[in-house]
């Protein structure tokens, strides 16, 4: 269903403009990292793309979605995963059931993805008693189980320790390798370098540049990005 095209996208809340006219095109393939200072509008932009927020102006166009519902072919992982008060397995099944899968399909697929993210042993444990890292892996499993064309990740490792972060990163790479487009925000520039193919740099609600990762870090096009990189890197 890609490419995704944003056309003069705007969003304001309570009279405050947060996204002030962003146009961009996200192609299938490259892992897109959305960077920008706090309050730049990264999370809001992602929610607009995912359809959780309704734009105040402009359009989100899924070009490849012929007939089908684009919402059904994307998934999102949040900074703080919301675990339902049920077992890890049931959490994954919950999403699959909503996607209209048969009970048998749900069960098999859920067990598969738990195996992949390394939570097979924890399948029957209540999701809320898992560790933070395990919960985020479960959130990834729940999202990925839906077989999305696009996976949005909103600072998925912000609350995790380095070991758990590394597990999540390798899972993201694996999901990407299996053919899913990755769109992700992060504060961690090292992570952006490790995981990203291209950068969308946002500042105060505007897209300053969309650049391949290497060029972004060595030779950013915008002065705001240059300041940002200098400020963020030690």
């Amino acid at each position, binding site marked *: 269903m890609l490419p995704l095209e944003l056309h003069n996208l705007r969003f304001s809340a309570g009279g405050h403009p947060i996204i002030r006219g962003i146009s961009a095109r996200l192609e299938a393939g490259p892992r897109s990292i959305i960077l920008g200072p706090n309050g730049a509008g990264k999370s809001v932009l992602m*929610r607009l793309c*995912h359809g*959780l927020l309704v734009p105040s102006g402009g359009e989100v166009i899924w070009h490849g979605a012929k007939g089908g519902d684009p*919402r*059904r072919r994307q*998934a*999102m992982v*949040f900074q703080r*995963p*919301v*675990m*339902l*008060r*049920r077992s890890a397995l049931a959490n994954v099944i*919950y*999403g699959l059931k*909503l*996607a209209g899968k048969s009970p048998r399909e749900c069960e098999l697929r859920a067990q598969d993805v738990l195996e992949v993210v390394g939570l097979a042993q924890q399948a029957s444990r*209540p*999701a*809320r*008693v898992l560790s933070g890292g395990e919960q985020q892996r479960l959130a990834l499993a*729940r999202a990925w189980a*839906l077989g999305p064309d696009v996976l949005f990740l909103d600072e998925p490792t912000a609350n995790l320790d380095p070991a758990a972060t590394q597990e999540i990163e390798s899972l993201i790479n694996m999901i990407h390798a299996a053919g899913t487009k990755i769109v992700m925000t992060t504060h961690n520039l090292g992570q952006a370098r490790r995981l990203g193919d291209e950068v969308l740099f946002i500042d105060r609600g505007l897209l300053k540049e969309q650049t391949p990762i290497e060029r972004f870090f060595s030779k950013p096009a915008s002065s705001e990005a240059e300041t940002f990189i200098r400020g963020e890197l030690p």
Partner: protein
Amino acid sequence: MSGLGEAFAAAWALIAGVEPGLVSIVLLSLQVSLSAVLIASAIALPLGAAIAVGRFPGRQLLIVLLNALMGLPPVVVGLLVYLLLSRAGPLGSLGILFTPSAMVVAQTVLVVPIIAALSRQVIEDAWREYDEQLRSLGASRPSAALTLIWDTRFSLVTIVLAGFGRAAAEVGAVMIVGGNIDGVTRVMTTAIALETSKGDLPLALGLGLVLLALVLLLNALAALIRELATRRYG
């Protein structure tokens, strides 16, 4: 103070003696109030959840109304239900006035606003946490409401118990629609009212202590279940 001493003695004699009359009164109390609370929960929990996740005109007004109805005097409810169920009333042909069924109806009316208003609050708080995650997974509002009821179940148990407490403790409504008929509609509270009016204050207070002990026992049980469940499910 000697009155209190006598009351404890009377309560003890009632419990230790296991009078068959008392047992049937206690059973009827439990039957009526538990039935009322079950029916009320079946109505009020979905109602509370619907208001919590729904966005419709008049919603705020409905919330204010429900909160106000929590303080509905039982006598007023009793009178309304009496007028409804009386032979001269619109539902008179049912012929259930002065039966336990009428008492269940009255207590249900009394308890629905309590469970609905309190569960609305709890579920709305949970909805704030779950909103984006559930919508991201593609849950419709009705299915989100059901998910939230299930996920807040431990808090809801406390609310349902509060409803039970109100039902089991009220006398105004069941007195009017039940008629306090010996062996048919006499429950703990109407028996207490009767003994009070006969001037047998120790016996009345003794019955009151038995009622208190029952409600206490039920609450302790629920607290225990909640504690164990929370420890298990997080």
